[in-house]
């Protein structure tokens, strides 16, 4: 009886040892983080005709890894542009257009365009959400004399429920958090 018990116990132990087959090779790939925004693309349509310009910030492999690639925004002096912004996730296949998500939840998002002093760019006419508070998916940029400067483009997200977004909210309002913050070099020339 005792011997048998011993045998059974050791057999159980030994079987366990044999059961160890390596199975780290999973078929799945990294289910990509749908929260990643890799690309912010600004499209400039000159008022009164002319070539449409696009400038972008792209971190093609998401945060970490390779460094992002960022273009300078080059605009003509004394001109007005209708600007639209597009957000992409190029790590997804097919590429994910995140702009539509923002479009759907306008009252919880807001773009800020903050040119540095002396950049000779003003941004106005941001589009509004359903409550009449700016979203900034589209805007109007006006340039004056030639200058080199910079512009900070910030996308804020209101996690609250309700979001409590208000026109007076500053870019660093504690009510909202940062989804995007990019500093572009601008050249009006």
């Amino acid at each position, binding site marked *: 009886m*005792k011997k048998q*018990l*011993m045998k059974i*116990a050791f057999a*159980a*132990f030994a079987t*366990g*040892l044999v*059961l*160890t087959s*390596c*199975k*780290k*090779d*999973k078929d*799945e*790939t*990294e*289910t*990509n*983080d*749908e*929260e990643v*925004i*890799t*690309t*912010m693309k600004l499209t400039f349509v000159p008022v009164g005709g002319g070539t449409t310009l696009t400038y972008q*910030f792209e*971190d093609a492999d*998401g*945060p*970490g890894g390779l*460094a*992002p690639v960022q273009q300078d925004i080059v605009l003509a002096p004394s001109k007005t542009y209708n600007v639209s912004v597009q957000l992409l996730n190029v*790590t*997804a*296949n097919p590429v994910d257009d*995140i702009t539509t*998500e*923002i479009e*759907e*939840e306008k009252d*919880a*998002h807001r773009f800020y365009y903050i040119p540095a002093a002396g950049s000779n760019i003003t941004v106005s006419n941001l589009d509004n959400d359903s409550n009449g508070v700016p979203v900034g998916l589209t805007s109007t940029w006006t340039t004056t004399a030639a200058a080199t400067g910079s512009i900070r483009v910030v996308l804020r*997200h209101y*996690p*609250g*429920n309700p979001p*409590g977004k208000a026109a007076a909210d500053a870019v*660093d309002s*504690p*009510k909202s*958090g*940062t*989804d*995007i*913050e*990019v500093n572009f070099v601008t050249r009006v020339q």
Partner: protein
Amino acid sequence: MFLFLAVWVGESSAQTCALTLSGHAEDLDTREKLAAATVKLQETGQQVFTDQNGDFRFTNLCPGTYTLEITHVSCDLQTKRIVLSRDQHLDLLLPHARKTLGEIVVESQQPKPAGRQQITARDLEETRGKTLAEALSRINGVTLLQTGSTISKPVIHGLHSSRLLTINNGVRQEGQQWGNEHAPEIDPFIAGKLSVVKGVDELRYGSDAIGGVILVEPRPLRDQPGYAAELNTGYFTNNRQYVMSGVWEQQLKKVPAFRYRLQGTFRQGGNINTPDYRLNNTASREANFSVTAGWKKEKFNTEVFYSQFNTKIGIFPGSHIGNLTDLLNAINAEKPDPVFLGQQTYSINRPYQQVSHQLAKIKSGFSLGEHKFTVSVAGQFNHRREYDIVRSSSNTSPQLDLSIATFTEDLSWEHPRIGNFTGMAGVSFMQQDNSYSGRYFIPNYFSHTIGAYALEKWRKHKWELQAGVRYDAKNIDTRRLKFNGDTLDYNFSFSTLAASVQAQYRPSAPWSIQTGISLSTRAPYVNELLSDGIHHGTATYEKGNIFLKPERSLNSTAGVRYDAPSKKFSADWQVYANYIHDFIYQQPRPDEPVLTIAGAFPLIEYTQTNALLYGTDLALTAKILPRLEWEGKLSILYAKDRSRNDWLIWMPSNRYTNELTYQFKDKGRWKDSYISASWQHVDRQRRVPDETNGKQDYKAPPAAYDLIALNASTTVKAGNVPLTFGIGVQNLLNTRYRDYLNSMRYFTDEQGRNIGFRLRVPINNGNK
């Protein structure tokens, strides 16, 4: 507790009265052999004492029914009914005396086993309804690492997470313990006993217990026919938390070898209130249950255990940070923005974490002659999901999703006592499979570990010597599957050695002196090797380091304990110095920020240094009046980075506690009544890394603070049921404070006044 109606069946004289009843008595909680216990047969009046090994023997008994009565200074009286028809052997487990203050008396009578510190029955009772770590922090030298008030991890002498092993019901807990905001996935109500083990006994569980081993042990299954039930309930005013926990256990009269236990806990708390404001989304919910079944015969016993732990914990949204600018704004604000404050609710929204842990184990023990063997096979499955704040409110999936399955086997052998030697040896095997989906933080991996250990204890007169050695070999094969189909494979193998020697000397009954030295080796964890991503709680970019080597620690301890024979005074003083070669920690790299679309994140990278952690723990008790006792505890820690001659970051600060307890006289139906007041002082952490070469922390350590707590408890007999009522008030003065080891200290104050009510209803029945 319960008495048996003794029915002695007078047998005819024709029967021969030549039966032998032998037995063995052990303390149910400490499993120490009980010497000098009185064993009495009520019917015959015969009385014997247990010998040094806890053994006793009655001879020349007539067949019949007897009532055995066993008493011991440190245990409650126990009675047991026996039907004797042939020679019989009994193994008796005696529960500790339930008297709260009696615990101290017990310790003075029975020296603690070397290297073990156990939470007292009273402390365990007072922390019912709190987290496992909060209960453990009643042990001197154990502090907390917290994320808000709902997530807490134990810290032993400055070390936590994968430097501590948690042994849940004999099985090494394998969850996602590497993360600072990953609390142990264990129902505290499972624990009949909580202790911290250091030294030689650590080796049974692993070679990597640099900070020590935490043992969570349920009470042994019922050892008398009948059933018992216990209901624990509690309510806490601060976050309107209620808790219910129930146990049912039974030993069948017809099949006395079989016994089982069912246990379950439900806990729900609403949003936490600080003295000035209520924090949104800090509610939590927990539902756990366990089933144990055992079969016990003289030469063979087996136990099957299954437990499930499920929790959902809200994270304060004001701490979920988009980028560094936001973080600095949040940190510099005096208090969180009103949008994150004021809701009184039980509901949990993003961000939150949801964790489940399942454990199934089968453990069998059998004896071959004087050799004892134990085989334990266990499977664990841990599923951790973290739900971040997301852009789209229609998104229901977690952003971090980690599953880890672990299979462990342990075989141990206890050899027969040879002269003054006892000892054991064992082998253990573990394999583990981790997989993730969603955001990358650690890779998929498969790892296996094979280990073997041996330890010997020698006891003679005033001396006890222990020594042991353990070796583990560990393989980790990792694979990261990138979004574009690329795979990144890294394979590691580590071998780790541990050894320990310990000596205890008891020159006279009140004194006990002990010293020991332990070598432990911990292989780097997967997150330390390969983590790569943004940590939203701290707005940092965390990066692993594949070149890390195992860290080796040499921990020397010494202690002296004195228990005055008058029981009016006791002292326990411990000193330790833990030198850790190649200590793994996170080093900020202020020159290499990681640029992302959300701005630049500071980089912190895992790196190694040589560390020295040394300090002392002192505990004193004194009876000021016959019923008034004072207890003082002091804990001091120094944590040095030896390579850079600097202090280590995130180490607990010095603290001391004073407590006065008044024990009322038992009166009529009222028993074990006491009232106590405690005052804890936690110093500001003054030993932080030098910041002249770059910032190491976002905010200077918070100021020192003092907390007052009150506790009162009484047991009253309602019929046959002894009801225990307890009231506890934490943070009596509603003090506004922040703690250095709480990552929420950057954003919010700690929990304000919290009044807890507890009720325990034990129901016992020995006859059914």
